[in-house]
């Protein structure tokens, strides 16, 4: 009996994560990229004009968007070799599972990168906050869900175009705008000690974005494939 939607998605996600875990090439590249970007941003601003704590949320979420793009491109890129994608498509699983599995693996990937990038920002930008970072971890999960939904879908589209990886940021970044804005504003509100109330509206926007785009991208993915 062929596996159902979610268990098939789990198989795909485990496959992708196993490949990534054994090679670790993309993970380390993206982690190093993120740390470098965080460091470079610090020197791109005048620290006497803007306090580094005010800079931190913006730097964190811009790095998140760009680092995510680097990792997301590999998602369907690895399936290009030796007709792996055709094998995946001819397997007896719903096509939505391929998308959900890939997106789940990307979510783990992006969150693992953030688990190193966030302490990097705390360290380099000397921001306090203490327990607030637990709430920010929640913001990260919300932001990452929306980002991998859109990013995974566009990754599957661009591998079939002439421009391939050049096209991904072009298509995906406008879609990341609400995510980066909401996450950065929520982080700023939380870090400046205004409490959870001002951040709540931004979090609602993030949650709504996740709902809409996870549903839309899962539904539309099979339509992006050759019938």
């Amino acid at each position, binding site marked *: 009996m062929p596996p159902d939607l979610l268990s098939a998605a789990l198989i795909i996600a485990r496959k992708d994560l196993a490949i990534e875990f054994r090679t670790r090439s993309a993970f380390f590249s993206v982690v190093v990229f993120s740390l470098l970007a965080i460091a470079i941003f610090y020197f791109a601003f005048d620290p006497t004009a803007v306090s580094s704590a005010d800079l931190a949320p913006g730097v964190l979420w811009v790095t998140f968007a760009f680092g995510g793009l680097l990792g997301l491109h590999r998602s369907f890129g690895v399936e290009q070799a030796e007709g792996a994608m055709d094998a995946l498509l001819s397997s007896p699983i719903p096509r939505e599972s391929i998308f959900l599995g890939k997106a789940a693996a990307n979510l783990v990937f992006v969150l693992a990168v953030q688990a190193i990038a966030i302490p990097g920002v705390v360290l380099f930008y000397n921001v306090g906050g203490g327990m607030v970072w637990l709430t920010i971890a929640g913001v990260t999960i919300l932001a990452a869900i929306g980002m991998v939904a859109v990013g995974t879908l566009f990754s599957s589209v661009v591998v079939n175009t*002439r421009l391939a990886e050049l*096209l991904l940021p072009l298509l995906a970044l*406008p879609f990341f705008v609400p995510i980066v804005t909401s996450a950065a504003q929520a982080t700023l509100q939380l870090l400046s000690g205004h409490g959870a109330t001002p951040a709540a509206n931004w979090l609602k*926007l993030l949650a709504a974005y996740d709902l809409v785009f996870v549903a839309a991208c899962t539904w539309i993915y099979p339509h992006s494939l050759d019938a």
Partner: protein
Amino acid sequence: MTSPAKPAPLTAPRIRTPALDPLLTLGVVAFIAALVRAAFFTPPDAAQGMAQKILYIHAPSAFTALYLACGLVFICSGLWLWLKDERLDRMADASAEVGLAFMTVVLITGPLWGRPIWGAFWTWDAKLTSSLFLWFVLLGYQILRGAVEEPQARARFSAVLGILAGCLVPFIHLSVYLFRTLHPMPVVLKPSAPSMPNEMLVSFVFSMSAITLLFAGLLRARYRLATDRAELEHLEARR
């Protein structure tokens, strides 16, 4: 020894477009008339002076690009997924490109007004930001279409982008309410009665209709171009 059989000669497609496209000509003439009326036969604004006159181009262009062009891209993309009719793909292509042109007009006229009134060409206000990113999405749509050779795949991918872009617009609009906005609130298209003197309102409605007509003319011309291109692709594939 026999020479290989020559393929059947290719016939040039019949030229259907007349030298002067009547709808497009009407649109251009109406647009010029609307400009003349707005510039010379409408009183300037009491507070903003002559700068306010840019409203007659800016707001109708924004309406056309945002609601007509982007709406058409969204609807045609959705219908394409369902019906798989290549005419829908051409319509989406045409409205995205004409929409990009009108969005460019919005982004050029806005700063021209902003400089004397706000004292800056650009501010990172919610409406400006969302227009800019919508412009980027439309630009990305064109680049995506250019990067796919196979017509079926091109139609599929652009329909996917068209639908997702439609889902993105409400989120960009929501940021209007979350960010504090500098942009003037709507004076004509709002739930209560338009807060504008009658003379200005007539000019506004006139330029609104003229720009909508211009949009229709350009859309039809661009749609025909897409049809001709598809025909050319068929012919080249046969060669």
